[in-house]
């Protein structure tokens, strides 16, 4: 399967991935309405310490431990390998956040879980990848 991979040597720390993710998942057509003066809840985030920057989003693990801990059955891995979240089922217990080794789980304003679903509902190429100005975030087949 194609995955989002992150190459920190190319990351500028611009945080555009966060804005593009929030916009793509807002359901709105107007970027200004989606982002301006809004508290955004992107499913990708940049970690940095001044020298180093890189983006973190769901790894769609081969054997996702988040699913093993999900108390509501909201997290599922599809036949396509994409780990998705069912917001009708999620109760916001955050067991997945307690288990994800990479810190990829976040929450929305209603405290249910948000995570990268590879933009399967938004188009062919994830918005973070499309908007990355320096190809630090790539959508590619990765050998296991």
């Amino acid at each position: 399967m194609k995955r989002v991979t992150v190459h920190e040597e190319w990351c500028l720390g611009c945080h555009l991935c966060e804005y593009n993710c929030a916009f793509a998942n807002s359901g709105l057509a107007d970027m200004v309405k989606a982002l301006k003066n809004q508290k955004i809840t992107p499913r990708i985030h940049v970690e940095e310490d001044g020298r180093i920057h890189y983006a973190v989003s769901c790894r769609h693990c081969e054997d996702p431990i988040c699913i093993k801990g999900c108390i509501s059955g909201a997290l599922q891995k599809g036949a396509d390998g994409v780990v998705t979240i069912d917001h009708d089922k999620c109760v916001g217990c955050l067991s997945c956040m307690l288990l994800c080794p990479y810190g990829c789980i976040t929450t929305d304003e209603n405290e249910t879980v948000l995570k990268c679903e590879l933009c399967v509902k938004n188009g062919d190429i994830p918005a973070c990848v499309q908007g990355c100005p320096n190809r630090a975030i790539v959508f590619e087949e990765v050998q296991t």
Partner: protein
Amino acid sequence: MKYVIIGNGPAAVSCIDGIRSVDPDGSITVISKEDHPAYFRPLISYYLEGKSKAENIYCRRADFYESSNCGVIHSEAVAIDTDNRSVMLKNGESIPYDRLCICTGSSPFVPPMKGLETVENKYTFLTVDDSFAIEKAITKDSRVLIIGAGLIGLKCAEGLRDRVQSVTVCDLAPRVLSSILDDECAAIVQKHLENCGIGFSLGNTADRFDGNTAMMKDGSEIGFDVLVLALGVRPNIGFFKEAGGACGRAIIVDNEMKTSVDGIFAAGDCVEQYDISFGDKRIMALLPNANLGGYTAGVNMAGGSAEFDNAVPMNSIGFWGLHMMTAGTYANDENAQMIEEKGEKSIKRFFIKNNRLVGFIIIGDVKSAGIYTNLIRTQADISAYDPDALTKNATLLPFGENYRRKTLGGVV
């Protein structure tokens, strides 16, 4: 090959998955005491709260048992004949097995209490049927008294608050969540729950009952309409013990989820196994462990090879916006060093022993706490990492570029 699974919760359905990952054909029989397909037990409080619909609590799709080619018998196992490899049921049937997995979970523990028989509306809170029964018993004018301020009692309180007039929780322990929180952390949680409208009477419990009144140990009286008994649980291990199986407080299993009896495996809330953060066996009755242990048992029952060799206790729980997470071992260990980070609305306590993170308590800022859980589960040597970078915020920064290239740039 004939597989029999006693119990029908998350450990049991994960066991079925494990068996089927190796053996697509052998016959599987599940013996289910409850009259429901496997459901997520922690959802029973969210059902009361209205966050989970009754039709959404099940662990698997409706056709799971059929598509896994798995029979379900609704009865209760009462004995095991280990010589002839068969399970005796309450309904008189005897079910032969080649490989057996015990996933019987636990039952509410209710100690003898004076006058309890005079209380009409009393419930335990462990099954979805308990949830349905409590729902029937309450009205918007009900005063609910919950005995037990542990995970079950407090989740019940959260589920009921908006549906009744009042909820009071009492516990003989002087603090809430005494099994997972220390005094200071428990005080933060209790204050939050009080602000959310839950009443407490701690260090105090019901001495006796007279109808709808609890006479408390401290001499006070608490009137109630509905009583919930949430004093803890005991693993369901009686028939295994009688068959001569090795038990401590629960069924003892190794990393392959094998019991002391040939051909018999066990998983879920009814087992105790090696806790790598603690260095000894103990009960870790938590959903991730039930799933991981159940799957491991299934694979090994079917002749495959799997180990669940990194079990640790872990809890993620929240009440009305305040989240807390704990993992590993952190109580009563003088040899562990504690590092504390305190924020305005947050407290983090990390427990380090022999250069390894062995446990943590985080209240409030729980973001990305799985990074810490992973350090415990992998027993990583953390001496090379900058302690400040490690504990102030949970990020992948301390672990270096190579680790990030592997995890963020590859397949994990």
